[in-house]
């Protein structure tokens, strides 16, 4: 497991704990935060690695 994967895993686990371990309404905000953390983990995994090049190369002709 690389350093990055390990951090990722910790983060995911932290987020899971946060999302299961809440009392109902007081921590709704925390729950949303934990869900967002999970989502951002997933997006970090699938996002184009070379964002700069990806964005630069996306050039379209106008349409309609």
């Amino acid at each position, binding site marked *: 497991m690389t350093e990055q994967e390990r951090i990722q895993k910790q983060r995911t686990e932290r987020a899971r704990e946060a999302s299961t371990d809440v009392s109902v309404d007081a921590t709704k905000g925390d729950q*949303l935060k934990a869900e*967002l953390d999970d*989502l*951002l983990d*997933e*997006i*970090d995994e*699938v*996002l*184009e690695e070379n*964002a*700069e090049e*990806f*964005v*630069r*190369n*996306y*050039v*379209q*002709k*106008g*349409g*309609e």
Partner: protein
Amino acid sequence: MAIAKVLGIETEYGISGGPDLEPIASSSIIVNAYAHHGRTRINWDFQGETPDLDARGLPGLTSFAPIIETHLANTVLTNGARLYVDHAHPEYSSPECRTPWEATLYDLAGEEVMRRALVIANESLALEDAISLYKNNSDGKGNSYGTHENFLVGREVDFSDIIRAMVPHFVSRQIIVGAGKVGAETDHGLHSDPFFQLSQRAEFFEEVVGLETTLKRPIINTRDEPHSDAERFRRLHVIIGDANLSPYATFVKLGSTALLLAMLEDEGTENFPSPPRHPVHAVRAFSLDPSLRAVEICEDNKWRSAWDIQDQLWTAASEYVRRRGGEAVAPDAEVALILEQWREMLDGVRDDIRTVADRVDWVAKFRVVSGMQERHDLSPHDAKLRAIDLQYHDLSPQRSLARRVGLRTLQSDEEVREALHNPPTSTRAYFRGQCVARYPEQIVAANWDSVVFDLGEGPLQRVPMMDPLRGTAALTEDLLKVCPTADDLLEALDR
């Protein structure tokens, strides 16, 4: 009495990759991949396409008329849709649908057509030449391409009333149906240097009313090309929408617009809110302000935010439905769902945007973009944030971010698969789609208002469909069933 709001969406998809990195060639690969693989490969017939006619009755002397390209890949699907290369994009034009729910379903079917085309095309391409498709409206560098809605409107409605009634909606609905954008890309947009905008398209609009779609884009497009009996019908061609990935956003975008058009037909402009005095300024300023606090001076000298305008429109539409019902738009339960969701989205973007992150595209995107900025402590101009914006719209299930943000579904996968192959039953798209499915060898061409047969002997025979509400399953299903060949069908139609 308002006429049935037959409607549909045309979407030009963003495209990258391909063997020559040439968008027209890559778009043709996509369209041909689906056409060859699908059950048909029927040419689109251009007779009756007159995009240069102006609904105001004026010759378009000061504007350039759009050009129709006839030499590019072009096909009609068994679900009644058109799939073709438009300019440098693959485009799916949905079949004519009877309700916003149905039109949303056929828009999703269009995404699925493109996803399947992508898989077929990429199987035959080298890995480094693989094509990607994006359901978005701009490249972030000042180039925009369209997602156009179409609504059937009675010819007797005065075009100036359409302008008066619909401008308030078209400048303000982006607060709930905008697809969101990181940064800006036009001179005036860059001048404001926004971190995030509500709409992909808003900054590209330069006129209030006009005929063009590619230059000096107007909030109200006057293209008068009814694709039906011009004595009775108009087709309102709405070019100011964003491509939505959230089905609820598509549904509310279509539903709210259709209800307001029905209200206009039934009761005139009286109950519509006063439009902003400077609509182009308003549409841009509203887009630049995710806080929704920006206000614009309106014709009645009152200042309104986009939210205020939407709130008034919602109230007017729901009172109209209470008075008259919404049957021109959809059955009662569907109209109730349109009003309910429109309201929830409005209240959500005002009170707590997190509550509508599962339905409003810009909110879903904003949540991820701002979350990522915070997590990695990124500059607002970091390419990573723009990459998120772009990849939100990627159609590939492996890369799509829209698929991961928890958008609520409106229809099941099974319903979408069904719509991929079969036409809607309550419009003429039924007859078109069924003919394509049943008599592919005898059809030489088809377009929105006719199907042309070649029976091998004698001249080509055109079957006109000038009324979008005829050619339905109720009217033609029995006939089609007893006509195993196109000869039988034409003979029966002759009688």
